[in-house]
């Protein structure tokens, strides 16, 4: 597969997943705010903090009011991570590799783009409750995953898109956990209070994990929840699961054995996977939640740049070597 094409497919995977996760963030925060006890100020700033766009946001905004935050994260073209931007990039990447996509896939991405692009702001923001809009985005992206699942051959392109999707998802799950860190309770005594409980509930729902968690763990408490979202071997949005799947994709692409590596991307991801595999909740508590999450995010960034170097960039020196050997 052409490097340029692989690059586009990988980013197509990342941007779609990013858009979906943003839709989840906003949707859930909105829900959460509806449940807040009277008198408590709605918190939208944590969302901006968790996405890593805080610095960008404060350049043009004073307040973290609902309307501004939702607009910033959804339709603001000046925010490169807004849903509209992510879908625009996803589509652009789709356009670049269109000959590698099925007709349905392309037309769904294109349709989603046109939907976002043509919906006038007023139409959405005029409504008091934009939740159906976010649900729509979520479902359209899920539909794309479903289409891909049943129609796309498991060749290199598949693994690059899936790789992008899982890396992005691992990153976003970590950021969802970070929302809780930033979501300040009025006082330390509130830990374990109904409000605290509400927060954790919202968090679980944002990753569609409430029912699963209840069945597996029962009580809603921070340690169980952290274990579930960071280390669970079977839940498809836990960080470990995503990293393991991403690692498998890399192995398929490089044709290397499990627990082995042929390039620096595989090496880095293998290291993160085993660190996660041999850690538990006690380690997180020891190192601090925010610090642990921060470290995971940084490692994902390193993996991402190693993928770039291993597969997408011109490798003229190695070309010459191959030539002289033959």
């Amino acid at each position, binding site marked *: 597969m052409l490097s*340029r094409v692989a690059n586009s497919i990988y980013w197509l995977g990342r941007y779609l997943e990013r858009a979906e996760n943003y839709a989840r963030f906003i949707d859930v925060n909105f829900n959460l705010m509806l449940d807040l006890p009277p008198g408590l100020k709605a918190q939208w700033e944590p969302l901006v903090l968790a996405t890593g766009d805080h610095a960008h946001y404060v350049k043009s905004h004073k307040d973290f009011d609902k309307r501004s935050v939702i607009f910033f994260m959804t339709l603001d073209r000046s925010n490169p991570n807004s849903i509209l931007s992510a879908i625009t990039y996803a589509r652009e990447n789709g*356009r670049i590799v269109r000959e590698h996509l099925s007709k349905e896939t392309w*037309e769904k991405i294109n349709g989603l783009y046109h939907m976002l692009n043509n919906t006038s702001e007023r139409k959405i923001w005029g409504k008091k409750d934009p939740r159906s809009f976010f649900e729509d985005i979520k479902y359209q992206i899920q539909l794309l995953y479903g289409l891909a699942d049943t129609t796309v051959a498991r060749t290199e392109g598949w693994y690059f898109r899936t790789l992008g999707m899982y890396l992005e998802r691992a990153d976003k799950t970590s950021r969802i956990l970070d929302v809780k860190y930033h979501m300040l309770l009025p006082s330390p005594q509130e830990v374990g209070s109904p409000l605290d409980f509400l927060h954790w509930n919202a968090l679980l729902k944002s990753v569609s994990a409430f029912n699963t968690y209840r069945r597996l763990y029962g009580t809603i408490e921070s340690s169980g929840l952290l274990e579930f979202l960071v280390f669970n071997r079977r839940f498809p949005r836990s960080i470990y699961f995503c990293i393991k799947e991403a690692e498998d994709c890399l192995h398929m692409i490089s044709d290397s054995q499990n627990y082995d590596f042929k390039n620096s991307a595989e090496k880095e991801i293998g290291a993160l996977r085993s660190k996660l595999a041999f850690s538990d909740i006690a380690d997180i508590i020891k190192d601090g939640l925010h610090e642990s999450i921060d470290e995971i995010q940084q490692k994902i960034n390193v993996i991402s740049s190693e993928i770039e170097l291993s597969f*997408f960039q011109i490798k003229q020196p*190695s070309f010459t070597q*191959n030539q002289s050997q033959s």
Partner: protein
Amino acid sequence: MDLSNYQCKGLYDEMFQEDGICRAHYHPFEKLLRKTHPKKLKQLQFSANKSQLAMGMTFNVYHNEEGLEKILHLDVIPRIIPNAEWLQLEAGLKQRINALNHFIQDIYNDQNILNDGIVPRDLIENSKDFLKPCMGLTPPKGIWCHITGTDLIRDKSGEYFVLEDNLRCPSGVSYMLESREIIKRAFPNILNKTGVMPVSNYPTRLLEMLKNLSVKDKPVVGVLTPGIYNSAYFEHSYLALQMGAELVTGEDLIVRDKKVYMQTTQGFEQIDVIYRRIDDTFLDPEAFNPDSLLGVPGIFEAYRAGNIALANAPGTGVADDKAVYAYVPDIIKYYLNETPILNNVPTYLCRKPDDRQYVLDHIEDLVVKETNAAGGYGMLIGPKSTPEEHEKFRNLIKTNPDNYIAQPTLNLSTVPTLVDDSVECRHVDLRPYVLYGEEIDVVPGALSRVALKKGSLVVNSSQGGGSKDTWVLY
């Protein structure tokens, strides 16, 4: 739909005779059209537009900051060509392409036609499309112009005339193919009843033709695109998809030891045949325009060494110059010793003193064109221009006569077109596509371009034209 008010007096209409009687080959469609309620027709038009947008059949896209994308308006009423007429066209096109191919081969090798004084030497050697590096070159199987999209029009009498040969990178074939799919959905039963020849195997024929250029059993074939900002990008990716070929950009390719390689995630892979959609002079900064970032350094050397086949061959543009066009009837006679089946539009070459004087005297009746411009730019339509514009062009011609030709304004034929709630006549041209592989092959269909503005003769998509599905009958 009530057609009683349809007016096409004084013009050749594709569907109706002067006396208002529908031409025989349109009968089944006429019946359907009369039965269809205007509202229904509007609905069909609406969904045709929608499917084009959904498919991303858009052009000239990203220059606009809003990301606004335009579709090439597809009018739902087809243009129909009867078989006998088509056979004539087909024979004429084959003859023309055959002669032009001989011409290009000769120009870059023996130059007999120049030595014999049939075509002026300076006209060729001063042309910016004459590529000196191609001298002495014979491309694989002696074929230069693999893909041609000839523009034709009909005048008042209904006779066809060739307007342009388009041997460089003719576009629009994807619209021909996808428009058919859309129209099939709009009028599901009528195609069968009318007996319309299919066009859908064009990509297969194109791929066969391209593979034919390599000696390898399973050559790696690619489509070379300038990238997503090019207005014809939809077509490039569409054709790559339909052929199962790689869509490549200049940056994906690298030349080593006179061989061309693609940069893949697993290393470098050789590529054997390229359908290039980049203009000649942008192909290779080492051989041609050194400023081009689109092309591949060294690809021309690889081409000369026979390690890569390029379609169309670099250098074909020389036969596509509007001044050379005037000589095509002579070219046909010279190489084939045949009378041209398809006529040229009478053309005045401003480089010839007599012609130039005639043009200067009659500019208000003529269409003046730059010899190297395309897309409806750099032209003057005499009858529709002001005296100031006439004067401006007179001066341009006097300063640089070689750069201009002129032709009489022809009344292009018209065809019924949906305009709001009614059907009105609009001017139309015809662009069939010709492939030159094992033999010369004319696809039984075309892109018909329609001037959407009432009375307008300009059909280019870049100038607000639309298109029509074109039915060639069995």
